[in-house]
């Protein structure tokens, strides 16, 4: 379903993603793990047409997203690390807007929106403006939205960041359920190793822009003689802490807080 070969992304002298290759089978839940700044988000951005790769080949369901952008975009849904909802619109309006952008047939629009909002327990709040929602509700709405156009692939970039265990648990239950019933391929990143261990069929560990290990959670643990995935992860990537420079998004988040925009 996803094929990546020798993918490279360079920013000037800095190589963010260095010659990575992997394959994700249809119907698989694939976890992409790595420390901060390892190149996870950059990879997702290249897979989802937001960034142009410096080199290498990508195929999503047989399509090259750098060439057939719009066709490829219809194949996947994505939940970003940063929320991408329109805070000034209601939950229902966010869903309706997405349905129009993805050309979900008018006949099934209302029905699907209702079904998904009910599944993610947001139906009662459908007419409330999104900015009044808690972090967990926003996440649920984003994931519901990601499923609206029945994508073949769902990208989840740290979807559980900052959520409490209850919400995280519920979220993965939904994702697993949709993976099992709709055969959606899921490509996820997370910093919570227990989550990856629980939901992922296969895992790739990326560090300094390169893939250092690939396999099922079991295989990774065996390879490294570890009892938990967290131990396996640490022995693969070392225990030194990675400091990322603050990006302009971080700075703006500060300003946004000051002005109470969010």
């Amino acid at each position, binding site marked *: 379903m996803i094929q990546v070969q020798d993918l490279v992304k360079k920013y000037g002298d800095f190589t963010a993603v260095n010659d990575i290759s992997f394959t994700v089978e249809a119907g698989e839940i694939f976890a992409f793990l790595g420390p901060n700044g390892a190149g996870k988000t950059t990879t997702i951005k290249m897979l*989802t047409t937001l960034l142009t790769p410096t080199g290498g080949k990508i195929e999503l369901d047989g399509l090259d997203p750098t060439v057939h952008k719009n066709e490829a975009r219809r194949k996947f849904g994505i939940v970003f690390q940063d929320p*991408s909802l329109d805070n000034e619109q209601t939950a229902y309006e966010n869903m309706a807007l997405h349905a129009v952008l993805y050309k979900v047939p008018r006949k099934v629009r209302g029905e699907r929106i209702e079904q998904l909002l009910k599944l993610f327990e947001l139906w009662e709040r459908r007419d409330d403006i999104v900015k009044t929602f808690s972090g967990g509700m926003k996440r649920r709405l984003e994931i519901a939205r990601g499923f609206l156009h029945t994508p073949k692939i769902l990208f989840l970039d740290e979807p559980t960041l900052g959520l409490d265990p209850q919400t995280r648990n519920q979220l993965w239950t939904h994702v697993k359920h949709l993976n099992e019933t709709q055969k959606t391929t899921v490509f996820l990143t997370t910093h919570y190793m227990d989550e990856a261990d629980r939901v992922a069929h296969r895992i790739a560990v990326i560090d300094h822009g390169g893939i250092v290990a690939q396999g099922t959670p079991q295989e990774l643990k065996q390879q490294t003689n570890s009892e938990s995935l967290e131990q396996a992860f640490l022995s693969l990537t070392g225990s030194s802490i990675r400091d990322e420079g603050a990006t302009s*998004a971080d700075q703006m988040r500060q300003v946004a807080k000051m002005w109470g925009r969010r």
Partner: protein
Amino acid sequence: MSAIYILWLRELKRYVRSKAQIVASLGQPLLYLLVLGFGLGPVFQKAGNGSYLQFVAPGVISMTILFSVIFSGIAMLWDRQFGFLKETLVAPVPRIEVMIGRTLGGATVAVIQGTLILVVCLIAGFRPVQLSMLPLAFVFMALIAIVFAALGTAFGSILQDMQGFQLIMNFMVLPIFFLSGALFPLINLPRPLAIITRLDPLTYGVDALRGVLINASHFGLALDVSLLCAIAVAFLSLGGYLFSKIQL
């Protein structure tokens, strides 16, 4: 087409829902209109140029539109860094449609703002010379809005952070306003100033509005219209190009 419509509608909904913002954004034009309009009125009158309120009202309406569209272009910065822009950029919709929807949305909001200021002008004592020309005034307001909304989109596409915003305000938007002849007549200007005002797109917008509202066009409506249309096409192309090049 439906994508353009839904994104246009989004801009409108956001506007209608932010009551505080509507009121706040009318504050500055009101100051210009009332303080300058009545403050400079006596001097202007003595110089033999008639009523300053009559003269400045079309300028203040243009200013309202200019600021409104530039702000909505720059609001893209927020959408871009942590928000909604990504949702539209990964959608299977040509970027040009996304850009047109946003730009027209911002332009529509600006025309509504301009209309509100026009109403305030009427209350303050402004009198259009010919009421039959009023519909034409809306055409020109829309034209001004589109020209600068496209420019705002272009700015929004290249800006990365809030520092850039200050730069654009102080070195682009405020000069565009002050050099447009919104506040002073274009006759008998010192030569350098006369040249600069002629390079400012807003000059022709203000001039056209003066033409239809108080029958005092400096360049003539035909020239104003053709120049504004040409600039609109140029800025829309520029905005569309820069928007299509956005990488996140």
